[in-house]
């Protein structure tokens, strides 16, 4: 097993950790952390699997660079939304109940 594949496996674990956090954590900041961890997992898999034969592959590396920039963009937007929500509601979590007129579904 190459080191790259090892990191890809770690990426799978990170993705799962991030996914669980995103689904289970009610706190918005933690959801944002979880999303970043999930993304890092996917990036590791992309590069790790791409280099599983031990050859350095610049293509997935470039993709991950793109991905990291996208991730920070999304994170910044998410944080801005979370802060706005904090200002409006005094909480950093999504209300469990749905907006007033909407009956609870699912």
């Amino acid at each position, binding site marked *: 097993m190459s080191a790259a594949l090892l990191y*890809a496996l770690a990426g799978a674990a990170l993705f799962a950790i991030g996914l669980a956090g995103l689904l289970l954590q009610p706190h918005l900041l933690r959801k944002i952390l979880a999303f970043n961890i999930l993304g890092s997992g996917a990036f590791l898999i*992309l590069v790790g699997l791409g280099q599983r034969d031990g050859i350095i592959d610049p293509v*997935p590396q470039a993709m991950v660079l793109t991905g990291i920039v996208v991730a920070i963009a999304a994170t910044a937007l998410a944080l801005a939304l979370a802060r706005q929500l904090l200002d409006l509601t005094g909480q950093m979590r999504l209300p469990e109940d749905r907006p007033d007129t909407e009956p609870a579904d699912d």
Partner: protein
Amino acid sequence: MTDFPDPLPWLIVLPLLWGTLAFLLGPGRGGRLAIAAIALQGVLALQLAGQLLDDGSRVYAVGGWGAPLGIDLMADGLAAVMLLLTQAVALPLAVFARGYFAASPKGRELFWPLTGFLLAALNALFVSADLFNIYVTLELLGLAAVGLVAIAGGRQPVTAAMRYLFATLLGSGAYLLGVALIYGSYGSVSLAVLTPLLTSEAPLAVTLAAALILTGLLLKTALFPFHFWLPPAHGGAPAPVSALLSALVIKASFYLVLRLWLELFAPLATVAAAQLIGALGAAAILWGSWLALTQTRLKMLVAYSTVAQVGYLFLLFPLATLVPLGAADSAVQGGVMQAVAHGLAKAAMFAAAGSMIVATGRDDIGRLGGVGARLPLTLFSFGLAGVTLMGLPPSGGFSAKWLLLMAALESGQWWWVAVMIAGGLLTAAYVFKVLRRAFLPVAEGDRVTRVPRTLEFSAFALALAAILLGLFGAPLLELLAVGRAA
């Protein structure tokens, strides 16, 4: 290329350019620029469609490298149909938005640049033939959409935007993981390179990738039970935004599901998976329609209607998977027709709803009395859009349902017939819930003001287009056939 300018790259560059310029012009500016540019995009899309009809589908190597090293764009009939839909919906909506934000300025500051990027993302997504490039367009699309939901501020829209952002990020996360697995399996992300490589004996990683990618996209399309984020986001945003989101944005991820299912992942498709997607679609139709019926806010009703109408799109999968060729063709045509018809009709409906809300000063179905008398054209547009959603002839919605029904009968899957018919009746119920209120006289203490003409006429243009699609839909099907294996 003999044509100059080549429409394909300009369809992507142009909205990026005017979006950026609108940002440079300053808060709230750029509406006129946007309208002119979208009109030009419309011409380009028509030109592209003409090229495709003459010469068949085309591949465009960005930078001249070609797949797999570079990124390819690919335009076939399906992509052209979606491009046409996008510009056709965007143009009247841009006209509408200018009037709307003049009357109700909350959130107008950054509407135009965000819309420019949104349209660029859509156009780029429809013609992309590279899985990773699609990921970037998806993120561009998702962030633009979330930004648009939040532009008006306020507790409900910001909450909705937050929820929407997490949903869309989770969706693209799953998608990205899928892409990583595919690159890791084959060493390429080009659709053209991958399609012949992917067979029914693909490794487990690829099957997992397909599942992840499709699930992520279904989440972004808000297919039941992933619909939780859609109604507050679409119902809470300013009306032109709701219209753009419901008409176009969810169609983008649907388009990807369709394209990948029919092409790249076709060897992995099973009847069970197709039936499952169809069942989710059916549940969306019934549950979404039912919830639409119980709403008291007009825009929430229209938003839940989107949840239901999305369901129709997904009925095509069981009807097109491992069935006789004729039925499959008919199903795909029906599904695409539904996407187009719903796009036009739902844009019209949100625009009409926006006018009604501006006119009555509130978003309340119970207080619509007097709208019929003061805004007859708007109400008429709402009704016409409703006709399309109900699937009554002549309308694009009917053509779509007809094709899907034919496919269902031809492939012997009568249970979908029952779902479609029931959904049509439920749709009628919630559309008439609005119409009958609007026919009433003005309630005491309420005021209904007139709205600018542009608001009324842009909604009407969209609704009329949805109807005319039902009468003149044959050319669209001809275009759709370009590049699809006969």
